[in-house]
């Protein structure tokens, strides 16, 4: 089998999350693969728009929801523009799942704190639904999510769903100036809201995804709240081509993000050269 | 590029014409409305001005299967934008010399000035260019990358590719 050949998948649904962010749901065309395909939250794949190329995203759906996978992406380059032009019923390609994952098994019995900014909610969403579908295995679930403005919040329907659940604490925030009339959430940057929400670090894990600057300022807050560096998880987004440790593009010092990552603890990140 | 053409049907070249909107396109339109008979081998791409025709357009046309290219616009002094065609003239002088130095036969690219009133001249340009390219045969200058393309299937081919 040629590793670089993608599986064919059909777009079965699409949702425009924000003006420039779209979620595609895809189902594999090969029935056997559609039945057996499995992955873990945090893993990524290479998504093909034929004729334009591949791009790398974490799988945004939960492994507990079988029969399809989803990806959410911002339209920035050639391949994402081409992906965005696909309609329901169109064929795209997928290679994966690749990389490591969030160790949800290890987190069972603990509290979970999810912190995300902007499109960074996509990989986190996979773990959130994974945990919520196995809700009785975890203690408190807290979600802090922020975006630049109300219109930049992704997964709005799901945010409403989480907000309505009694077994989830959700704090939504937008950057100052990004609020709209009637906005009932917080206004302020994610690290500040995390500090305000002050989730308990007692037997808890934090999963943090978002822009580098958000992660940079959130980590000290979590440390202050008592989270140990080996209990804080995040994903690294490096440019990749092959996804399987060959093409040499995603190295950060000795690390191959595609194989050693994309999920890293804050402890591991601190040991890496600051080249990401 | 058309190596699979039926032996019984004679080779009919495909030509791409890059023309300016103001003179040659109108001239070509005139040729049409005047019901002038001419070869039907040319596909026209209309641009604002010859000054807008990047030589890469011509390269791309050949890449995508054209056997010949025509570039045409307003006569000197007639440019709608005053000097676009003067700039184009210098650029195409360099381009023509370069691709011919690289071995592209002279007749594959035709440059002309055709004004809005010269429907008759457009017909001649088209017929002459088509005849020249027909005589030259198909442009098969990219062996191995024409469809369907699987070069370097064996190490020997790969070696050829690497070493050539």
């Amino acid at each position: 089998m040629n590793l670089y050949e993608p599986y064919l998948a059909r777009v079965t649904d699409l949702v425009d999350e924000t003006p420039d962010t779209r979620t595609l749901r895809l189902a594999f065309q090969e029935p056997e693969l559609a039945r057996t395909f499995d992955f873990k939250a945090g893993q990524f794949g290479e998504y093909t728009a034929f004729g334009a190329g591949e791009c790398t995203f974490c799988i945004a759906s939960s492994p507990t929801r079988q029969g399809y996978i989803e990806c959410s992406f911002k339209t920035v380059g050639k391949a994402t523009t081409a992906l965005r032009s696909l309609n329901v019923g169109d064929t795209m390609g997928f290679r994966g799942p690749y990389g490591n994952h969030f160790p949800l098994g290890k987190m069972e019995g603990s509290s979970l704190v999810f912190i995300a900014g902007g499109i960074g909610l996509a990989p986190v969403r996979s773990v959130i639904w994974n945990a919520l579908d196995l809700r009785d295995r975890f203690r408190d679930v807290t979600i802090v999510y922020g975006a630049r403005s109300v219109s930049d919040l992704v997964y709005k329907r799901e945010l409403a769903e989480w907000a309505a659940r009694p077994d989830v604490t959700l704090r939504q925030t937008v950057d100052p100036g990004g609020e709209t009339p009637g906005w009932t959430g917080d206004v302020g940057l994610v690290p500040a809201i995390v500090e305000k929400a002050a989730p308990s670090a007692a037997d808890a894990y934090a999963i943090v995804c978002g822009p580098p600057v958000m992660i940079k300022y959130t980590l000290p807050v979590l440390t202050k709240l008592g989270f140990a560096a080996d209990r804080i998880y995040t994903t690294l987004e490096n440019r990749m081509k092959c996804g399987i440790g060959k093409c040499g593009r995603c190295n950060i010092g000795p690390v191959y993000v595609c194989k050693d990552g994309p999920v890293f603890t804050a402890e591991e990140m601190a040991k890496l050269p600051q080249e990401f | 590029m058309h190596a699979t053409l039926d032996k019984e049907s004679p080779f009919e070249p495909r030509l791409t014409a890059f023309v300016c909107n103001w003179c040659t396109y109108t001239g070509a339109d005139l040729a049409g409305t005047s019901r002038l008979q001419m070869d039907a081998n040319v596909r026209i791409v209309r641009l604002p001005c010859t000054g807008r025709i990047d030589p890469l357009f011509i390269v791309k046309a050949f890449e995508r299967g054209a056997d010949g290219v025509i570039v045409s616009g307003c006569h000197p002094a007639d440019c709608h934008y005053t000097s676009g065609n003067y700039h184009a003239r210098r650029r195409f002088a360099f381009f023509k010399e370069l691709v011919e130095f690289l071995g592209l036969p002279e007749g594959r690219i035709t440059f002309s000035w055709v004004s809005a009133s010269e429907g008759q001249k457009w017909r001649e340009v088209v017929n002459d260019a088509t005849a020249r390219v027909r005589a030259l045969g198909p442009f098969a200058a990219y062996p191995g990358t024409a469809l369907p393309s699987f070069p370097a299937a064996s190490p020997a081919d790969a070696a050829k590719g690497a070493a050539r």
Partner: protein
Amino acid sequence: MNGRTITHAQLAALVADLVAAGTAVTAPARAADGRLDYRPVTRLEDAVLGDGLPRLSLKALFLPPTEPLFAFRLSGSDVAIDSVPTSFPPHVVLGAVPCDAAGVQALDKVMGWDYRDELWFGRREATTIVSVGCSSRDETCFCGATGGGPTATRGADLLLVPLEGGFAVEIVTSKGEALVTAHEERFGPAPNEADVARSRAALAGSRVEPVAPLAPVTTWLAEHFEDPLWADVALRCHGCGACASVCPTCHCFDIVDEPEGVTHGTRRRNWDTCQAGRFTLHASGHNPRADQHARFRQRLMHKFSIYPARFGELLCTGCGRCSRACPGGMDLPEVLRTIAERAATAGGAA
């Protein structure tokens, strides 16, 4: 020595046999401009054995500068994929330079970890590599420091060592042995050991390696990602990537889609280089390696620290091509010497 001999006439006959049987033979041969390239040959006279490095290294035969990964056809909402073959007809490389053969073997590690690159290994398995003792060393070569040498066998299936009138044949692998067995009549008896030893000694020469042992360099690199050396040492680097193009072990690649018309296209894998600014450039505009010194550091780290740490071997065979290719006059032996000196000083201080 597990060996045989082969005369020039026998070798010529072997090449003729192989070609007649449809086996492609690739050897260093003169291009139109007189320089050496690995090229297909059909007769021994065209091969240039043991006398200089081809321009591009042997890796180009196994990871071509460009190769299709598959083709695709679009029709309406459907896509069909046309696979490329991952098995290849038999192929013999005659006259591989030992440092090139070593490079190919080093790359087996990265091409095979967890995910097996079938295009690479398909070609590897189809190919028998016959190295020839190298007599063309200059002041940029440092194969000795990387564990190689003019008659090193790493990566080779057979090694030819020049003797009067022909070569001694050292059988290195079972694949090499199979080639000998299949063409038994083209090989002579075992060589005179003393002659072989003399020839090896002559090839080894008396020149001192321009680079000290590299183990301290590897250690130093692992601890000095941040160091003033990097800004200093890479000043004359243009970031042109000529070094990576000629390198026997640089294997970074890009994957691109090339539409051919509206309904067809090919996905290809093309050589790429970590020396290019756009290599790590994100679509967002963020570039983790925005500076040339960071890119030069990456190349050096990958070769002498990252790869050894991950795979237990250097990603450099000391062929010296990078130094010769560099338009900015960067010199890898010099850089390695500088680092070795620092490592020695640091070791003394600690």
